[in-house]
């Protein structure tokens, strides 16, 4: 099997606290993978290492495809640059504005090309951040809880948008989330990080487009929650 991302023996410590403990991970090209874990389980540390934001320890192997793009929990747009310049930030090659415009059209923000970030709503700003990642045509897309700060309705629309974009561009995608429903709804594969390693690796083969509910959805949800150490009464009853 060809792999897009390969991680071996990744250990990260912060003081006496071992966050990642000899972690191994393989991601197949074009796969949509959700990474779950309790807070403090090292999800974000793993994502930061893949993004090149944290140094790779000498004994570890971390191979990622290039280019890589990140969408953070907050939009992190530069407030002093209009939207299109934010999207085009650091872009190599010609016609930056044209390419930024195309990416903004894909996320439905074409009208806001010259707007200041401060004038955008939370959902719009996060869509702009998505466009900034897309415009680089990434082969690895890292999403660090990008929907956590959005309201429920906006989040549903963002889920649809991310899936559409993933289908159109097919980057290997790693979504860090603490939301089990989100993982079941979006991913091909859900990983649960616990005690510094991948504790569970669950394939999600529900047909797309997916919707909440149904016995299969509930079963997967219950299984992931159990892996996370949460017990719910009886998933079959709820379904």
């Amino acid at each position, binding site marked *: 099997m060809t792999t897009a991302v390969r991680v071996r023996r990744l250990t990260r410590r912060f003081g006496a606290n071992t966050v990642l403990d000899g972690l191994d991970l393989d991601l197949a090209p074009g796969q949509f993978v959700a990474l779950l874990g309790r807070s403090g389980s090292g999800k974000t540390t793993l994502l930061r290492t893949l993004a090149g934001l944290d140094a790779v320890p000498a004994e570890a192997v971390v191979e990622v495809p290039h280019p890589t*793009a990140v969408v953070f929990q907050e939009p992190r747009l*530069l407030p*002093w*640059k209009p939207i299109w310049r934010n999207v085009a*930030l*650091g872009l190599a090659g010609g016609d930056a504005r044209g390419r930024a415009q195309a990416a903004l059209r894909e996320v439905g923000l074409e009208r806001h090309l010259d707007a200041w970030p401060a004038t955008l709503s939370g959902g719009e700003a996060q869509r702009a951040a998505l466009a900034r990642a897309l415009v*680089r045509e990434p082969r690895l897309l890292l999403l660090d809880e990008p929907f956590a700060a959005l309201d429920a309705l906006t989040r549903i629309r963002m889920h649809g948008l991310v899936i559409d974009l993933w289908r159109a561009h097919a980057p290997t995608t790693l979504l860090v989330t603490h939301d089990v429903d989100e993982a079941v709804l979006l991913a091909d594969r859900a990983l649960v990080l616990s005690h510094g390693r991948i504790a569970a690796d669950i394939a999600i083969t529900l047909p797309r487009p997916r919707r909440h509910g149904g016995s299969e959805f509930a079963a997967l949800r219950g299984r992931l929650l159990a892996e996370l150490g949460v017990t719910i009464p009886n998933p079959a009853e709820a379904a």
Partner: protein
Amino acid sequence: MSGSTDTATPPALLALGAPRWAFPAPDLRRFVSPLVLVGVWQAASMLGMISPRTLAAPSAVLATAWGLAVSGELGHHLAVSLGRIGLGLAIGVSLGTGFALVAGLSRWGEEIVDAPIQMIRTLPFLGLVPLFILWLGIGEAPKIALVALGTSFPIYLNLFAGIRGVDAKLVEAARVFGLDQRGLIRHVILPGALPSGLVGLRYALSVAWLSLVIAEQINASAGIGYLINDARDFLRTDIIVVGLLVYALLGLLADAVVRMLERRALAWRPVLLKERVR
């Protein structure tokens, strides 16, 4: 007399009582209360409550100002003073910006630059005049140096704080999206520090006038400060007031210029965006 009572009416009451009496522009509003004070002062002079030796009446001051302006004397002294301010400010802003960049962008830069600047800053810099005269003589050099020294501190302090205050998350994001060190400074750090830098510039301008007043008492043969000192010897309070008014007006003007700069350079800020919508 009726004219002076009109001007003395508080503008707030006018605005409340007569809605048609609208101010033409927010920036002009800033000039209203100084004018009210002048009205009160004129009345007191005309009633003989203030002798011309203590303080000349505004009308006398205006007449003198007109005379000085027509003869070209005022223009000449003003040009000399503006030249000192301009050159001193340019040097001070350059030095302050340079040091702030060195100290703000690297840890070792901070260690080398910040400590001596903080030490010199504790000195009241106007107290350095005697040393400056010994070092630089009594020509233009010590005057410009005093303005430059005084203005460099507020620029340095505010810009340094601004650079250090730039959101680390934005820097991180920009680095992920491929900006190198130079790109980071240009697109993220400097624009992020600009609001603080402009606050520093505003402080620097007020310090510049203060330095100029002191500097122009050092054996000056031209400049607004010379005009004032010379007038003192002849008990010409009208000329002294003209000089002070010129200082004051220039201060207001400089403030307005920085405000305009802020409006243009910081148009992205939420506060300013709201103002424009309104």
